[in-house]
């Protein structure tokens, strides 16, 4: 049963997973062209090639290396997050960017990978999340980057890392009792968090709770994106025919709100395709996670897949008016480099755990 099989290099990749990932990026290219024409398309194709390269490379790294390097990677990421405050550049009132060797990147994006790796390595070494001391340790590892990112402020990313971390603890076997206790503590601290928010973040929460209060200010974005989605109907208005987005009603149409553009142009059928593909990625990813023989591999893969799900959920939720606007891209589909490359890197790591599943058994 555990006999190692000879595999070709290509067989390291899980075909259903890779196909679903590439189809999602393909949909992203349709969106990029529709919102910005050829220049956007060209740049996104280049980033897609870079992302694919990174994914292939990371899929070939032995899982043991990830476990070994996780602490260093984590420390470097935290250092970069601190550096953002010292030497970073800001956009729209938040300090997020760091320049390195001629190009810019957001350390917060890297933290989305570094944190699950670190927490998984820690939990795997301590034999799961059954003891309180281990849980507290893991929470500390999660809280450090979350607080740094929340302070930038990049609330969306902070929430994603925090919730994905909690999910990781749950999967690692944290007892229901502890779970309930920490959950209650978290809820109790929400009013405190309110005071930590910046004005524009509070305004967003208020807007979310009462969107019609001022349709031209805060609620404008969400109202316009709901109009875009709703007017798309079952079949959509056709590619490149979205009036909402082309008449300039929809803000951030190529990045965070691209889902609304696609829903307007391809209708509920298009939405179904996107969600089914996302579902394939998530379920196939979790199945792959279960194949790994090492607790570390299982936890890392599950954590990264969970983080992907949260992205999709939060982004589509905010664009369709279910959740407040937090400024998160739709992974693989939104126009932008860092998000695409880190998402593909995450799945490269997931596939590494998969491709080495039997080799490790002996």
């Amino acid at each position, binding site marked *: 049963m555990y006999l190692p099989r000879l595999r070709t290099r290509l067989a390291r990749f899980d075909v259903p997973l890779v196909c679903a990932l590439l189809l999602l990026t393909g949909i992203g290219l349709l969106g990029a062209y529709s919102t910005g024409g050829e220049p956007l398309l060209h740049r996104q194709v280049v980033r897609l090639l870079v992302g694919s390269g990174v994914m292939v490379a990371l899929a070939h790294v032995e899982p043991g290396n990830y476990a070994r390097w996780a602490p260093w990677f984590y420390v470097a990421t935290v250092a970069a997050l601190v550096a953002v405050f010292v030497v970073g550049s800001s956009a729209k009132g938040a300090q997020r960017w760091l320049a390195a060797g001629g190009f810019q990147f957001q350390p917060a994006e890297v933290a989305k990978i570094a944190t699950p790796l670190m927490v998984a390595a820690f939990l795997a070494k301590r034999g799961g999340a059954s003891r309180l001391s281990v849980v507290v340790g893991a929470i500390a590892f999660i809280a450090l980057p979350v607080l740094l990112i929340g302070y930038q402020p990049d609330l969306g990313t902070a929430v994603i890392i925090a919730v994905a971390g909690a999910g990781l603890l749950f999967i*690692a076997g944290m007892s229901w009792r502890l779970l309930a206790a920490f959950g209650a503590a978290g809820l109790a601290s929400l009013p405190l968090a309110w005071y930590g928010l910046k004005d524009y973040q509070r305004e967003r929460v208020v807007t979310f709770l009462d969107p019609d209060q001022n349709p031209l200010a805060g609620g404008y974005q969400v109202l316009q994106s709901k*109009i875009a989605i709703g007017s798309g109907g*079952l079949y959509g208005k056709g590619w490149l025919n979205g009036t909402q987005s082309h008449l300039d009603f929809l803000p951030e149409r190529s990045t965070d709100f691209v889902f609304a553009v696609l829903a307007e142009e391809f209708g*509920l059928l298009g939405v179904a395709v996107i969600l089914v593909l996302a579902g394939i990625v998530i379920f196939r990813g*979790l199945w792959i996670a279960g194949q790994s023989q090492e607790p570390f591999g299982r936890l890392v893969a599950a954590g990264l897949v969970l983080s992907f799900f949260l992205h999709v959920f939060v982004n589509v939720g905010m664009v*369709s008016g279910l959740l407040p606007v937090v400024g998160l891209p739709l992974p693989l589909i939104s126009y932008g480099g860092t998000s695409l490359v880190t998402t593909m890197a995450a799945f490269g790591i997931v596939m590494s755990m998969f491709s080495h599943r039997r080799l490790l058994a002996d």
Partner: protein
Amino acid sequence: MSLHPLRRDAMRERRRYRSRVIVGAGLAGAGLLVLFLRAGHLQIVEHEHYTTLSRENRIRVHTIAPARGLVRDRNGVVLARNFSVFSLEIVPEQTGGVDRTLALLHEILTIDEGEEEKFRRQVRQLPGFESIPLKTRLDEREVAVFSVNRHRLPGVDIHTRLVREYPFGEALAHVVGYVGRINADERSRLEGNPHYRATRHIGKTGVEHSWERTLHGYAGLEQVEVDARGRVVRTIDSTDPVPGAEVTLGLDVGLQLRAHAALSGQVGAIVAVDPRDGAVLALASVPSFDPNPLVHGIDRESYAKLVGARHRPMFNRALHGQYSPGSVAKIFLAFAGLDQSLDLALGRVWCGGSYRLPGTTYEYRDWKAGGHGRVGLERGLAESCDVYFYELAYKLGINRIHRYLTRFGLGQPTGVDLPREAPGLVPSREWKLATLGRPWMAGETIISGIGQGYVLSTPLQLASATATVAGRGVRLRPRAAIRIERNGVAEDLPAEDLPPVVASGEGYWTRVIEGMEGVVHAGAGTARRIGEGLTYRIAGKTGTAQVVHQETRTSPDDLESIPWERRDHALFAAFAPVDDPTIAVAVVVEHGGSGSRAAAPIARELIDHHLHGASGEPAPLIAAGAR
């Protein structure tokens, strides 16, 4: 058979893991389902409602481009301004056929072929909902003709825009630069900057480029109600744009025009700076070009013609031209010799007309056949004795020469607020080995002593280094802009100090400056001709940079007999008045022959203008004539 306890633990761990993952997968599935139901609710149940809203969606938010800030000279003369023009613009996806629209437009207006080609190119490149200009300068008759036919032309509209204009044309093109249409590359870099959403032009070169963010201003917003075709019916609310700030340059336009004219018919560059604050007083590069047509964009052919024209008018020689400093470098070597307390610098040398490295036979010639006799530092500078500086360079060695030239700011960009400045070159042993793969030769040190060989400098660097001598070691970063005015509030930009050149002994600066004074005022000074009739004192240094290797050179006396492109470059660097310098200037005339004849008189003319021209006093000399 019982399993190993560890094995059993692992099994239990796996079982628990599996159950937890199943819970997780279930939650994820439920989450996706919620999203789908939400989309279904909006798209099926509330579809009618949102379709109505979409059709009635009449409130659009327009961005209004800010007016670009003016550029003025130090006396308030406007160097770059804006004027209104009417332009015809088309939103391709609203036209119902670009070809049909163009055919209709051809019937009523004359459309230039180049403009149409450019328009079609942009139609292919830009998304269909962007407004693309077709014809940029409509006169009033054309506006009227269009208005009558407007109903037949959906998606076509007339926009009023502010267009940049440069009243001084080519005289200031290399300082002020120009704005041009934002290209696809620049547009992508501006992605996400809301203030550029309605902006069509961006600074391409010069001050327009380096002060882009300051000159640009902040966009305004306008909420308007539109009809089904996207045409504005009324304005609901608006926030005015904040115009760009005014940038005042240290430049004196009178001096600049004088400098530009002085070079006319020749090829070269002039840079004048104020040694007290680093302000660039004049920066001319000739030949030049008229920046005005470039604002609208000229067709590719004309642009290629302009770039490839004889003597490359688009090339900014003052910033990007890299020339051997020639004998001008002797100023800095003289200081190096004193600062290192070399016996030679403090004493004298015998110049018999040529110099030989110890133990070799090759002769380095002095420019003066027969030599200068016994020469000390001051006379060495005044008469530009090559042999003195061969000897000095030999004693200093290339390492120290490198160190001192670098200290004066050669071989590195000055950091002026003008774009893409060339660094020049100060060679060193390491540089030669790394770049050319060959070791340094002793002879190369010797010719470095007279500013030949690998040493390269820009006219701006020479002016800045001369200003450093004028300030007796105080170094200031040269700067184009000196003041910024936003909403009527002026803010003077501070002068920026650079690491000073500190002399190790007293009187060293005075000796160097006395030597430079001798160039103009001593009986045998190389530029004595410009010293005639001066009411103030100039410290200067001539330079003649060889274009062709020494051996093949003919005597400079029969200049006319040498083909133009084989003649030496002429240089002159100077500052004045000597006791309280207010101007430092560097003049480079390509293939001008000799520094004393071609470059020094120009420097004199400019210094005269600077010291007397502005106050209205007649320039005392020009009449008496250096000729």
